[in-house]
């Protein structure tokens, strides 16, 4: 491996461009003649729309058009629908309401778009939007996740009658009850897995242009790869052939799952461009991020676990309520199940498992995939159970885990939910994390903290994911006559660093220097047809494999050409470090690429050029399993309730590490978001469905001051189900951090008998718990 090959901590190619302001984000895109769109959004959580009076707004300066849901319907514009289908054990399907792009008849959450105003300037559109008069009749609303299962809660969809969309179960509960009854020790946990606003740095935006002559609609928007949005818009919304729909994302400032989705505003902006005959630009602001970007998490879990006299788990029952919001997101409803939650029981070997999920409707923003997408919730639940099991059995927290983890000699391991875990060294992860965090020396550190009036705690969290997303991805590799290589991708780097890693792969496989490799991405006109995008920690796994296979095809073709050039037999041609050799003769891949342009150099019937694609298709049920163990150490100031992380050790197995520098970045970012959930972030709706945390003044993003140095380590176990040996790396941190952190805080609070608190562990919440514990003791 060369200096820029696989496994090297190569600096990111894209950073100079991005850090010196040369990125091109959607707001940087301007098209001659464009008009500006501003959405009129519902100030109500739940209401009947009696009427919409657009006349005063239409008369305002600069206004070009105002459209409502009725205009869309009259023009045959399609609706949004979840991709998820589930049914209960009796076979009753879930209730899957359709969502119109602009609300018609009713609004079901605060922030729902009701109308769109087009004007010559952004300011004019804003001013006019305030003049659109919507007459609402307020309806009773429900925001609470656990409250929505109550049959008497105000129905978001009266046509369904209940806010419970479906009661999904993996099997009858009675099958597990028999095992639970035999348990020597039983533990239960009740968890509120807090709702989060993902908040990528770049708010949403869209610029759409319709070319009436060619019938091509072009949309610029931040995405995670345009192919899926292209398909959804063309087929489902605009009803045009997919090849007439082009989606372009040059640079995108963060995705985390929610930027990959087809939002109503994208459809409206495209349609409005067609309807008005003018290019339309919409620039969402941060307030709109809070009320219209899909939210993350929001589950309520109740779980019960039974253990035998040896501390082995004999039965597990999990009841999850998922708040899907007012409508069903593309993937939202499946997150607790096939979207990620089915990784329960995590890294543990548990034979008897009952799993129940109720996705419920509420008058809130729909929830969907957010970094980890069901896996952080699943792992958090398992790790809270393990801590409870330690308390109940008297075993240490690591011992009870050791007794139950899936051992390496059990691999490949078929989980209860039908996932085949190919590899992983779960005990090794724990050993490594405990050693590097100096778990043994903790007691001495605890005593030191005590001297300064602080309570110190240490916590551990195991995790495993099922990563990989959709089972299709296509990549194309071209070597031009000038010897430079280009990767054409449908995966889409929106921060991850694909320009760098893909170039490393090309240098490794084809010997084309790192500096001579470029990446073309973010445009459905250039990305291979079989692509899906970047989400679910899949780009190395699917895209990397696509590059590998395309490179193999380049070599295979190159070998034929080289044979002709070297006047040898194809079988006798070897390829190494970018050089084809036969006997004493040799020719570089660059020379072959140049020669490949001339038909005279090519074997009979061969197409000119060195340009190969490969469509990776895998079994839809085949995933990879990133895993790891995080150890977190905290100090709690008991007088103020402030929790400070003082030490953090992350051991990750993401298979073969292609670039440790970049994977460390992924770990840091994931841990930051996991700690954000556990320490500072919370989305609060009041009983009326009003969003109380609609800006950074009230919604706490994690800040540098909340962290200590994060020691990121790898326990590299190559994945057996792909040739690169890679597993996902993007979401691991968010899966490991919440449980390690909460475990640490509960360890610190043990003297007060506090064993569980719901996230986020804000000063007020921690202090309150301590104050109550003190007064209980006094009583």
């Amino acid at each position, binding site marked *: 491996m060369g200096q820029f090959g696989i496994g090297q901590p190569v600096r990111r190619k894209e950073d100079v461009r991005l850090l010196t302001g040369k990125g091109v984000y959607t707001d940087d895109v301007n098209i001659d003649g464009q008009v500006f769109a501003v959405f009129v959004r519902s100030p109500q959580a739940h209401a009947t729309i009696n009427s919409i009076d657009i006349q005063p707004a239409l008369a305002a300066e600069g206004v070009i058009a105002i459209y409502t849901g009725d205009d869309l319907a009259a023009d045959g514009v399609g609706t949004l629908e979840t991709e998820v289908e589930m049914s209960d054990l009796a076979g009753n399907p879930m209730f899957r309401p359709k969502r119109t792009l602009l609300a018609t008849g009713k609004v079901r959450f605060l922030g729902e778009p009701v109308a769109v105003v087009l004007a010559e300037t952004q*300011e004019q559109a*804003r*001013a006019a939007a*305030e003049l659109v008069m919507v007459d609402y009749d307020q309806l009773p609303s429900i925001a609470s996740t656990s409250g929505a299962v109550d049959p008497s809660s105000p129905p978001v969809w009266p046509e369904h009658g209940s806010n419970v969309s479906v009661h999904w179960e993996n099997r009858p509960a009675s099958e597990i009850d028999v095992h639970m009854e035999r348990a020597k020790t039983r533990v239960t946990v009740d968890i509120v897995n807090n709702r989060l606003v993902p908040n990528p740095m770049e708010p949403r935006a869209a610029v759409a242009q319709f070319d009436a002559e060619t019938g091509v609609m072009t949309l610029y928007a931040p995405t995670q790869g345009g192919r899926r949005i292209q398909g959804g818009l063309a087929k489902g919304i605009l009803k045009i052939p997919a090849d007439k729909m082009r989606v372009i994302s040059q640079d995108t400032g963060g995705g985390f799952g929610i930027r990959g989705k087809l939002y109503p505003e994208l459809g409206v902006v495209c349609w409005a461009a067609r309807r008005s005959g003018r290019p339309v630009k919409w620039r969402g602001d941060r*307030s709109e991020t809070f009320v219209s970007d899909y939210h993350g998490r929001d589950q309520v879990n109740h779980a019960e676990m039974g253990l035998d006299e040896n501390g082995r788990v004999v039965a597990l029952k999990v009841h999850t309520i998922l708040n899907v919001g007012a409508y069903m997101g593309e993937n939202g409803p499946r997150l607790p199940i096939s979207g990620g939650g089915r990784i329960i029981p995590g890294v543990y070997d548990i034979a008897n498992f009952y799993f129940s999920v109720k996705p419920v409707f509420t008058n809130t923003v729909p929830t969907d995939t957010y970094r980890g997408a069901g896996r952080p919730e699943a792992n958090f639940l398992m790790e809270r159970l393990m801590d409870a099991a330690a308390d109940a059995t008297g075993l240490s927290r690591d011992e009870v885990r050791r007794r139950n983890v899936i051992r390496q000699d059990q691999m490949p391991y078929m989980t209860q939910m039908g996932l085949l875990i190919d590899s992983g060294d779960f005990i090794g992860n724990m050993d490594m994390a405990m050693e590097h965090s100096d778990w043994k020396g903790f007691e001495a550190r605890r005593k030191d903290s005590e001297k300064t009036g602080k309570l110190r705690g240490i916590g551990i969290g195991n995790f495993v994911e099922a990563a990989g997303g959709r089972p299709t991805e296509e990549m194309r590799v071209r070597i031009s006559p000038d010897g430079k290589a280009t990767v054409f991708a449908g995966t889409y780097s929106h921060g991850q660093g694909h320009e760098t890693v893909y170039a490393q792969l090309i240098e490794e496989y084809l010997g084309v220097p790192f500096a001579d490799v470029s990446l073309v991405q973010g445009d459905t006109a250039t990305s291979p047809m079989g692509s899906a995008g970047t989400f679910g920690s899949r780009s190395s796994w699917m895209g990397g494999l696509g590059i590998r296979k395309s490179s193999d095809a380049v070599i295979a073709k190159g070998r034929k050409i080289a044979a002709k050039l070297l006047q040898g037999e194809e079988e006798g041609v070897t390829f190494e470090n970018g050089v084809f050799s036969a006997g004493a003769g040799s020719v570089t891949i660059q020379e072959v690429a140049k020669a490949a342009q001339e038909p005279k150099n090519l074997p009979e019937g061969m197409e000119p050029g060195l340009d190969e694609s490969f469509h990776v298709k895998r079994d839809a049920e085949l995933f990879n399993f990133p895993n790891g163990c995080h150890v977190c150490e905290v100090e709690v100031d008991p*007088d*103020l*309730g*402030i929790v400070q992380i003082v030490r953090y050790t992350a051991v990750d197995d993401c298979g073969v590490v292609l670039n440790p520098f970049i994977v460390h970045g992924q770990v840091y970012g994931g841990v930051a978001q996991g700690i954000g959930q556990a320490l*500072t972030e919370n989305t*609060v709706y009041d009983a009326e469905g009003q969003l*109380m*945390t609609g800006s*950074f*003044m*009230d*919604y*706490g*993003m994690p800040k540098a001051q909340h962290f200590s140095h994060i020691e990121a380590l790898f326990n590299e176990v190559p994945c057996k189900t792909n040739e690169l040996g890679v597993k996902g790396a993007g979401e691991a941190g968010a899966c490991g951090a919440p449980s390690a952190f909460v475990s640490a805080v509960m360890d610190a609070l043990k003297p007060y008998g506090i064993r569980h608190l719901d996230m*986020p562990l*804000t*000063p*007020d919440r921690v*202090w*309150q718990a301590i*104050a109550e514990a003190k007064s209980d003791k006094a009583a």
Partner: protein
Amino acid sequence: MQDFTFHMPAAVADASGLLGSCEDPKLIAGGMTLLPTLKQRLAEPTDLIDLGAIADLKGIRREGEHIVVGAMTCHADVAASELVLSTIPGLAMLAGQIGDPAVRHRGTIGGSCANADPAADYPAGIVGLGATVVTNQREIAGDDFFVGLFETALEPGEIITAMRFPVPKWSHYMKLRHPASGYAVVGVMIVDTGAGVRVAVTGAGPSAFRVTAMEEALSADFSAKAIDAIKVDADGLNADMHASAAYRAHVIGVLAKRAIAARR
């Protein structure tokens, strides 16, 4: 943001004149609060009068037993001022804990006090140090300046020109940052004036207030022990989803004791 006419007068008198003559004018200092308000169309003034070009309003100087801070002095300058650090370190400490570096380089002491955000830090300094608010029309005692939620004793058309702080014997400021905004959930300023002790609290009430029970106890015995038994009444204190009134009341006591413990 609505269009407006922008003015940049070079003297306070000119600014004052514009305030009188424009239809719906607004002063702008650092713009840290005003600009977001304009962007959200919560205020739509016809005229913005920028105080940034008035040299008289900037800078920090000593006048006898007082430190005078011009209204347009930014937080970062107060935090780093040798003069403030050597005379009223508690004030420098306070300014250095406001917001983030960008905010500290734009936001001004005049703008912060005129705005009178209940969670702002400076009000604790103005009240705790017994400062005088100097305007283009009169002088207002710090104790009388903050009259309620976002409400001050300023009359329409009045411009803050400076804050005059008496140099105390000792001062210290401690703050519990809001988990989201970074403003003060509670901020406590303790000042030994030489003639007695002043304890001022921001963040906890509708506006900054003094804790007289603590002041009396500390004036008699300047030690953390002296206020150990003093409980601040949670009644009437701010409560929001990030901090209950009971928590705020408790935190006042903890921060006050820690501030005192910081004196060696």
